[in-house]
Every structure is written in C-alpha cells, then in structure tokens.
C-alpha cells in the first residue's frame, strides 16, 4: 500500500492508504482527527472545510495522493496555533473562534468547525484584496447550517474580522 506523507496541524504524518482515498477519510477514519465533519462527501455542504497551506479547501474532494510531504493541512483542531500566543483570546483560541463563543453562534454544532474555517479564509481573502467583508461576501458563503444560525454567523464573522 502506498505511503502518504503530509503535515496535519503542524505535525508530519505518514499513513498507509491508497492514493484515491479522499483526505477527509484519512483525517477522520485513519488519523482520528474528527473536527472536520462529513455532511455530503461531494463538496457541497462544506462541513469539512479545513485549510491547505493557509487556504480553505474541502478534504472530501481531494485524493490523499495529491498531497505532498510539505503540504500543511490545518483543521479546526489546529486553528488556535495559527495565531501567535499573545494574539489568542481568553479561551486561548483563534480570534474567530473567540468571536463564535462570544456571539454563542453554535446550536447543534455539527457544521460549525467548517463555518469557522471558511470564515477565517474569507477574512484573509478579502484582506488580501485590500478590503473588508461585505454583505455580498456573507451572502456568498456556501456552508450550510440546518439549524439556521446564519444571522449569528454573519455577526461573528464581522466581529472576528476586527479581532483578526
């Protein structure tokens, strides 16, 4: 069986599994990293949203064989470490997670790791474009939340943007 080597949350891992197995299953079923959730497996619901080399991606749609040894995958579990220790909030978390806590965004919580990872990437993206989050940006977020926490997600993203 092929060996797959890449970096997860700052730690290099090697897993024996076929090239075509999607990264989501390698994370969840083989490495026990269960923060990214399954919601559809076809890159629609976005519950598994994580980061690769700092950009948002959906591991349900990436064969593990496409990752190289230096590719850095960050899941919700590794998000706090993306922030300097003195920039973390009262819970020791990434500013976006802190904004999520302050606004009590979560209901069932299932989609929320993906929502937070998408939000962080969105703020970075618009910042790279030299601007701030607009209503149109928020309208364009595809992550679904069946509990309907959308209003609080929007409020938390705007708050998180100012904290980031």
């Amino acid at each position, binding site marked *: 069986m092929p060996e797959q080597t890449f970096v997860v949350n700052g730690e290099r891992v090697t897993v024996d599994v076929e090239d075509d197995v999607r990264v989501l299953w390698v994370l969840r*079923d*083989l490495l026990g990293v269960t923060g990214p959730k399954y919601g559809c497996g076809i890159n629609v619901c976005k519950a598994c949203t994580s980061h690769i080399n700092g950009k948002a991606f959906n591991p349900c749609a990436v064969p593990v064989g496409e990752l190289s040894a230096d590719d850095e995958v960050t899941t919700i*579990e590794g998000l706090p470490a993306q922030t300097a220790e003195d920039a973390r909030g009262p819970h020791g978390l990434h500013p976006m997670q802190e904004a999520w806590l302050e606004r009590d965004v979560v209901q069932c*919580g299932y*989609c929320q790791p993906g929502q937070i990872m998408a939000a962080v990437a969105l703020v970075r993206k618009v910042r790279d474009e030299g601007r701030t989050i607009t209503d149109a940006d928020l309208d364009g977020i595809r992550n679904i939340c069946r509990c309907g926490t*959308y209003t609080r997600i929007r409020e938390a993203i705007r708050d998180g943007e100012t904290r980031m």
Partner: protein
Amino acid sequence: MTTTDGPHTVNRRKFIGYLLGGATVVAAADLGMVGRGATADAGELPTLPQPAEIADLSDLLTLAAAPTSQLITVTINDDGTASFELPRTEVGQGITTAAAMLIAEELDLPVDKVHVTLAPARPELLFNQITGGSNTIHAMYTPIRVAAAVAKGALLQAAATVLGDSANKLTSHLGHIVAPDGRRVDYGRLSALAANEQPETVEVELKDENSHGIVGTPVNRIDALDAVTGTKQFATDLDVADALPTMVCRAPTLNGTPNAVNNADEVRNMPGVTHVAIVPTGVAVRASTFGQCIDAVRALDVSWNDGPVAGMSDEDALAGVRAAEAPAPELPAGETVSGDFTFWFRSNSAMDTNSAVADVRDGRAEIWASLKNPNVAQGRIAEAVGIPLNNVTVHVVQGGGSFGRRLFDEPAIEAARISQAMGVPVKLMWHRADDARVGRTHPLATSRIRACYAGDTVLGFQQAHTSIETDFRHGLGDIITAKAADLPAGLGNMPFAQVIFQLTTILPYDFGAVGQSLVETDTRFNTSSMRNIYSPDVRTANELIVDQLAQRMGTDPLEFRLAHLRNGRLRTALETAAEKAEWGKELPEGMAQGIGVHVEYKGVTACIMEIDCRPETVGRKVRNAVTGPRVTKATMVIDCGRVINPRGVEAQMQGCVNDGIAMTLTSSLHLRDGHFQEASWDNYFYTRQWNTPPELDVVVLESTEPPGGVGEAGVAASAAAAACAYARATAAMPTEFPINHRTLSFEPKPYSPPVPQSPTDGLDHTY
C-alpha cells in the same frame, strides 16, 4: 375581546423529594400529579375553546412523565460539582444548557460546575424519556429544580453539623455553605457527609422564581467550547474499538429490498473492505474508511425487489390524498372565502446524517446513537437481533440536528443487524444521498379552508387537512405505546395522529364556528414529525385566508387580526412585532410585509416578514442554488412563558425563521419514478446565506406564565408570515408550498449506483 390564556397553576414552591442512599448526595423529585385546569372566556363572536386550548400535547407529555419524575436525580460530587443525567436528547435545541442553569440556580453553583450528560435508555422511566413536542422544559422545569433543592437541603444539614450552627441560619454562596460568622465549607467536602445510607423522604421549598439570578439571564451554551474547537462528539466521531466505517447500498426505488448480491467476493476484495452482508434494508459494506465504503457501495451489483411506491410520482401521491379527502364541512349561510392548498413532501434530514455505532456479539448488544426515544429503540433492537432486552445497552449521543428525524431509530436497528450479520462492531453512517432520499419526510398534505362572513363578522371557519400518514410509531417513548401505534394497516397510528393534531391545532381568532379536522392516508412512505409537525402547513393556510377575509372587509391585515384575536398574550406579541417591524411602512412595488401568528407549546409567537419579489432580486444568480424572492427582514416576537435562557430562545427563533422561509419558498422533495430525487444540499434547498434575512430581530417577552417550549415554536408563524408577505407582494395568493416546487432546480443524480462518487478537484477550488 377576551383572552384564552393557557392553564394556570398556583405558584407552588413546596415539594416532596427523596434523598437516595449512596456515597455522595443523590437527590430526586416527587411531583405527584399536578392538577391543571383552564379558563376560557367567550368574546363577542366567540369561538369555543378548541381541545388544544384546554389541554395540549405538552400537557399530555408532561402528565405522562410526572409519575416517574422521582427517578430523575441530581448528584453532588466530591469535587464540589453537580452531575445530572438528562433523560432527554440534545440535538441543538439547548436543553442541556437550560438544565444546567436550573440546577445551578437551585444549588447556588456556577453553571460551569454542573455537568449535564444524556441518560442511556432507561425503560423504567416509561413515558419520561421522549424528546419531542418541545416539551423538555415544560415537563422537567419542576422535577429538576426539586431534585436540586433536595440535594441542597442535604448539604445544609451536613453543614450544620460541621459548622455547629442550625441549618436555617446557614446560607449558600457559589458552591459553599456559609455560617453567619463567615466560616464556610464547600459542597465537595459536604457531599460525603450528607450522603444517606437509606433513602429518605424530605420536603423542600424551591427558590422563589422572582429571585432567580441565573434562570432568565442570557447564558451561552455549555457545549459551545467543544463545538468551536471540534471536540464535540457525534455518533460518527466516537472511537469504539474495531467499529470500522460501514455504509449500506440501497435500492433504486424507495424502500426496495435486496434480492441477491451478484459480486460479493469481488467487492470484498476491494481495497480496505472487510465485510459485505445483506440486511433487510440493503447490502452493507464495512471498510477501513468511509471513502472505501462509498467505492464498494458503487461497485456492488445487486438484484433488487421494487419498493412499494415503485413508478410513483408526486402527482400520484397527491391524487391519493385527494381521493381520501372528506367532503367539505357545512358552514353557516353567508359570503364565503375559500382556499385549497397543497404542501409537498419536505425533508427533515439533519447535517449529521443517520448514524449509529453497534457491537452485537455473544448474545449482547451495545449501541451508540442519537435517539429521542431510546427505550423504543432498545425494544426494537432486542426484537431485531433476538437478544433479551436486559442485554441490550443503548447509549444516547448528542445529535447534529434532528428536526423530528431522531424520534425514530432505523439507523440504530440497521447498525445492530449489520453488526450481528458481520460478527464485528460497525460504525454505520448514511450517505447524504440516502439521508435525503430514503430518510423520513414531512408528508405531502392538502388543506382546504372555507370561511364565511356577513358584514365585518366572521361566522364560521372550517379547515379539512388531508395528509399522507405521519408516522407516530414511537408512541410516547416507551415500547408498549410504540407497539400500540404499530398495529397493522395504520390502525394504531391513526388515533395517535388524530390526538396530536387536535392537541396542537389552535385557530387563535374569534371566527364563530371553527372546525379543524384531519384525515390521513397511505402508509407506504417514510414519514415522521418535522419541526412543529402539522402547524406550519395548517397555519400557513389559515393566515392566507385571514388576509383574504381582511381584504374582503377592506381592513388592514394587522387591524383585522387585532380585532379578532382571542388570546391576550398573542395580542401583546403581535402589537410588539408590528411596532418593531414598522408595520405599514412604505415599500417599493414588488415588496410587502406579511403577518403570521401562532399559539403552541404554552406560548405564543408573532412574526412579520418583509419580502422582496422584484425581478432583479428574484432573478439574482447563485451557482447551483435557488434564489427567488428574498425575505429582507424578519421580526419574531415570542412569549414562551417564564424564560429560562433568553439567548437560547433567540437562537431557536432565528432557526425557526429560516425553517419557515424554506418551507414556504424553497425546500421540497420531488418524487419521480418511485424515488425522491434530492441527493445533495444543492438539490434540497434549505435556507442558505443568500436566502436568509439580512435583518432578523427577535424579541423575547418577559412573562410570569409557566415556562413553555421553544425549539419548534416559531416555525408556523414564520412559514405563514413568508406566505402572506409573498401573496401581498405579488397580489396573488399562492396555493402550493414551497412556491417553487413545480420547477426542478437541479440535475438529479443517478439512482444506481445509489450514492455519488466524491469529486477529486478540491484543490482547484481553494480560497
């Protein structure tokens, strides 16, 4: 006009409880049967109280739960914390947080010192372990507080010995008992001292509700930190030894069954695959990863027997409902307004698909799943795998949403059968495509209304609701009533449906002779309650006709409602909503406001929505999405009785608004050729960010009425408000819901293989 408020009970504070024997303080409540009555006054053109105004579904569930409330216990641990196993299921509705607040209040502990977990199946609780009807707080508000108060009393007694003062001179402060001279001792130390060798009956006095310091204040969810750090565990996150990923290959028609597997050996030799087994619902595969399960499911060559609705479409299902409709009821003489509405199938699929972990070996079964009726599940699993009930352990796991879905237990039963057939533990997860297509639905229904009036007086209002059967075979949460509901040919389910319809249906207006009836037909579909059961459809139909009546009489919709409401709490809520939403404000052509109100769960809701139906809005483009009319502003006002956690109520109301919008504007299932077509969240159009109201205001009214339920309370008013706003904006009353059902807005995925392959181009779409 007069009011028909909910039943009142005297503000009773003295209760009996038990101190149970053990090494630490374990305390329980005893409620007896709390008597309840109702008052109903008649208005000028009175509508007699409807059954649900005298005793509703919440009363039924609460009374059924009361006799076993002494089995609900609060434990004080030696580290000074309190523990409580909630005999209900948390699926996002916030009941673990509310329970922690009630215990913290009564014990005078910080909320974070109260650990709330979910109780496993406890058959001795009988009717006291069903999570449904938004009834948890109504049923458990008093038992939880009594159990906590009994524990507190024991701590005071023990502290009296330690501190050498009489108990009534002692006070509590954040986990300590304090003597008048300031000496203090913490709960942890007192826990063992206060423990009883033998059970003892004690009388307790609850805290005065008006002096509550935690209850009634906004508190964040107790599981929020776990959720935002990815450590909150759902069924598929559990690490149960050797429970490898498992999926089921299902038939190309709904509820079809496997006849034979033609390539089992070939599939068993695929990478990662360990087992292939036929079960009644399909062909199960177990592998190292779910990705390899998907590959195996797609590779299976199975001969299928058609399901019971093979070849059928939506229109056929509707024709069946039409054929079952009873003749329209008689009305007094007068001018009439009528409406005939169709509500298509809707899905209650949650984000967290049907899933369960099962280990069925050596005459024992152990199951982990999110179950709102774990005792029914335990009984059915025992029967399915032929193992005595005592050897079946059912752990209840938090669910990633329910919306009615987890009232039932088919993933748990299916996982148990698979584990038994394979002889190994399994972690079963339904693919999204299966969850949407095969999972339970809100049944297709029609609602016919005729109202008659003379001048500005409504003389009568009759509604005949006809539906595909709504499955209530979970009974009251125990295996006996579940069996009773499962008599053949729907004969057991029918009385349940009638009772639930009558106990949840209220038309809150003085409309003379009011009659609302239900007929159900066709037991072949996988249905269940969906958030707020019948009410979103029933009330949407009602409120559209109310607007028609107002129009006929030349009255403003708000004024008309206020003139005819027969519920004082609802009047206040509607007036509040109208002011907050600026009812009647100038809007461009193509935009309008609409009103929906509702009475249920011991509370009232009033919703006003503002909708934009202008072409530039309706025609806006989002990839693989339904856009259409946009609700630009929603105002939701709720009086749910005494509020436990206003932050939780606000969250539930926001969710209800999004549900109501989806039910009216965007979300339905399409049955074609014997199967539902939706296989993705880009097929089933639940509200998304581009549909949600940019402005959403929730007002939670203060109230001294007994606390009611909130999880479902806002759906009916929201669905109705969206419909009424749409009708006013387009000057045409819609008669089918959702309004977009006739347009199929996606390319259906194949039925065979039953699940789509995961894409491989994810790295092309990073941002």
